[in-house]
């Protein structure tokens, strides 16, 4: 995938470094799950009505993505074809259950707000897709980088949508961060719009579709304008 002209030293190390950075950056930009592949939109639209909920789901998804990629990649030589999918589902389900218990124990208020969507991370096609298409065929470091890139890309989509919806719908930014970072974060809230300018629709489901569509158009425009922006599906 990396072009030969990009490796002047032509040493193995630099080639590996380029493949590694490629695995990461592809997930963030050219293969961004939400804005390019249009995957994982259900939790994206449902949870993103404030930044703190977005961040909570982004962190939970990232944990499941990276830990499942790590385990699937470690086990890839031990697994015959027929056992691969069951093993991947087992790993993802285990990681999700673990996340649910940890969130409920350490961020209860946030958990009670996004509980349902944390539980359905287990059915998130992005995670299964990366584990099956990439982690089960590549060495551990590459698999983890690929998962981390995918997670960062998903987080960018979630948090940008959450920020726009929170500003338009509630007029604030970073409200309720204390449910994730403890009492010190209670006064991080920035008020941007006065209450009478809030558009309630932005935090309701229809607003999610409208704003996600606009952000999608913007992201598409930015990504396709890049000179190296050929998007190839893995």
């Amino acid at each position, binding site marked *: 995938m990396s072009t030969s002209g990009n490796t002047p030293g032509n040493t193995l190390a630099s080639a590996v470094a380029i493949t590694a950075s490629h695995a990461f950056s592809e997930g963030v930009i050219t293969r961004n799950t939400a804005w390019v592949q249009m995957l994982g939109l259900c939790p994206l639209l*449902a949870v993103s009505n404030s930044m703190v909920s977005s961040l909570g789901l982004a962190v939970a998804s990232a944990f499941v993505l990276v830990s499942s990629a790590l385990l699937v990649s470690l*086990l890839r030589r*031990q*697994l*015959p074809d*027929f*056992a691969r999918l*069951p*093993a991947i589902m*087992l*790993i993802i389900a*285990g990681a999700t*259950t*673990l996340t649910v*218990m*940890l969130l*409920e*124990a*350490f961020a*209860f208020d946030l958990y*009670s707000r996004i509980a*349902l969507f944390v539980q359905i991370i287990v059915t998130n096609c992005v995670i299964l897709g990366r584990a099956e298409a990439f982690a089960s065929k590549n060495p551990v470091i590459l698999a983890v980088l690929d998962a981390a890139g995918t997670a960062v890309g998903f987080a960018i989509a979630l948090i940008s949508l959450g920020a726009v919806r929170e500003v338009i719908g509630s007029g604030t930014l970073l409200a309720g961060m204390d449910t994730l970072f403890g009492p010190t974060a209670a006064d991080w809230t920035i008020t941007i719009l006065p209450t009478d300018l809030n558009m309630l629709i932005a935090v309701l*489901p229809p607003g999610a579709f409208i704003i996600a569509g606009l952000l999608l158009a913007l992201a598409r425009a930015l990504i396709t304008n890049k000179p190296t922006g050929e998007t190839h599906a893995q």
Partner: protein
Amino acid sequence: MNATTGTNLLKGMAVLVILAGIIIGALDYVHEATADRIEVHQNRAFWALAEELAGDSTLHESAHGSASRPEIGKPVRLKDGRLLGSTSTAGYGGDIELLILLNPDGSIGGVRTVRHAETPGIGDFIQGATPWMGQFRSLHSGQLDFIDGRTGATITVNAMRRGVRGFISTVSSQESEPTL
């Protein structure tokens, strides 16, 4: 060829079984480690809800100093004669856990949902102090059919009626409750 397929099959099954064992072990460990913390959070959420509903912010402290919530079917009598208890009813997406306050005359003082798994956007009008939840206030057990239905959430509404009615009939069949 057959031998390789057989070995592969055995190997795959062995890996799956070992993997399942490791994951179950890890989950069990984390569950053990977090169960107490989660219980504390759930009790705190219950009492916060109860204090808000009863309009009495000293409820938690006067609860024998115990941090746990009243068990389902074992309500506690408050100092002012009202009865506070919790119950569980089968909703559309799983059990709905309710907190119910009864006035001394047997009418309903208020109802709150402690936890539920109803469809987001359709069944979540039972979450918090919504106008719909306000309808329960000062009704008697026989008047629960006056509660408004909700389009698309028939099962949720019926579950709420059933839960409250069941709670009242359990309570009225019991003679004495522990006094708070």
